[in-house]
């Protein structure tokens, strides 16, 4: 029966002339479009990672907390994609940016595509990013671009809470049981090399910084490190001495994990282009 329905469906799709795969869009990455897509991709990819916990978190309360943070990020992504589409002005929209770009076209930080791992790893990833995002969006509220400034004002409040929530967990995991300490420390060691990318700036972004549209993330590293160090030491954990940092996400060179994430995120629109329900 299922087989029959499947063959009927396949036949119908063929008869309707629906293409079974959707091609990648092309994006005209002017500096402002690229800048906005980078932040949008950050929010979408981390939000999607958090959504993977839905129904799997250690306790019901944390299941809700993770989903809430994921939805905050999805909301940020939608606003940023919509703005990128408007700036680009070539008929793309939030869905096309999210569903019809391949791995190499994604511009998110490598940190954010890293797999959830155990709960400690998810929390450390959230903590490293939220401590940065909180500072970043607060500074971006002074952007000369009024849309970005408004998105920053909304995102900052959300990031502030993500930071508080993840900080409390880092302290409890680090200063908890032997096992939770070991897992939290392993997560810090594993993810540390992905934190440098948050503060990097390329030529495309330098122009926007000089124009007062974007802010320079480099000076945020000192206050970020101060926040991180405070929480980590209270948690009886340590930061690695390692200064070597992995980069590539901002220019589309990703870890092997992003492709798997996108295949799940995009499967529906890739298989049934333009499907709505």
């Amino acid at each position, binding site marked *: 029966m299922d087989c029959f329905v499947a063959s009927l469906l396949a036949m119908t799709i063929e008869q309707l002339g629906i293409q079974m795969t959707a091609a990648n869009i092309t994006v005209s990455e002017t500096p402002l479009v690229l800048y906005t897509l980078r932040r949008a991709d950050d929010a979408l990819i981390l939000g999607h990672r958090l959504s993977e916990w839905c129904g799997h978190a250690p*306790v019901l309360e944390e299941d809700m*907390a993770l989903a809430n943070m994921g939805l905050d990020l999805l909301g940020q992504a939608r606003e940023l994609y919509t703005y990128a589409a408007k700036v680009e002005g070539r008929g793309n929209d939030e869905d096309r940016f999210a569903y019809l770009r391949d791995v190499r076209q994604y511009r998110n930080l490598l940190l954010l595509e890293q797999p959830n791992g155990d709960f400690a790893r998810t929390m450390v990833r959230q903590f490293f990013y939220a401590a940065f995002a909180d500072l970043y969006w607060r500074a971006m509220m002074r952007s000369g671009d009024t849309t970005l400034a408004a998105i920053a004002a909304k995102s900052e409040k959300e990031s502030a809470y993500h930071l508080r929530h993840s900080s409390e967990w880092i302290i409890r995991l680090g200063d908890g049981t032997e096992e939770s300490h070991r897992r939290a420390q392993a997560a810090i060691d594993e993810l540390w090399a992905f934190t440098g990318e948050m503060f990097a700036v390329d030529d495309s972004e330098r122009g926007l910084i000089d124009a007062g549209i974007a802010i320079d993330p480099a000076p945020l590293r000192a206050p970020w490190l101060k926040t991180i160090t405070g929480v980590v030491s209270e948690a009886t954990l340590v930061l690695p001495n390692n200064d070597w940092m992995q980069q590539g996400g901002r220019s589309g060179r990703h870890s092997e994990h992003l492709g798997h994430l996108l295949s799940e995120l995009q499967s529906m629109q890739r298989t049934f282009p333009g499907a709505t329900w």
Partner: protein
Amino acid sequence: MATPNIPLWEVFIRSRNGLAHKHVGSLHATDATLALQAARDIYTRRGEGLSIWVVPSNAITASDPSEKGMMFEPAESKIYRHPTFYDVPEEVGHM
């Protein structure tokens, strides 16, 4: 999902200025800070609140359901305690 050995908390939300905190439910959390955060995430997602209280469930002393005859039935026959035996002038409006 089982939540072994994690203390239970009662959650109270005040929805607007001038109103009282109302009991909305309970949750499990290891300590007061996390209980407050969990309450925020579970009970104020649709803009329900301006203020949250969390109270350890074991801090609440409750009346015994088996004593409800002694505790509550005597009040049922005292209708004169309701303020329904005098007229409120029209001009007073809603009290």
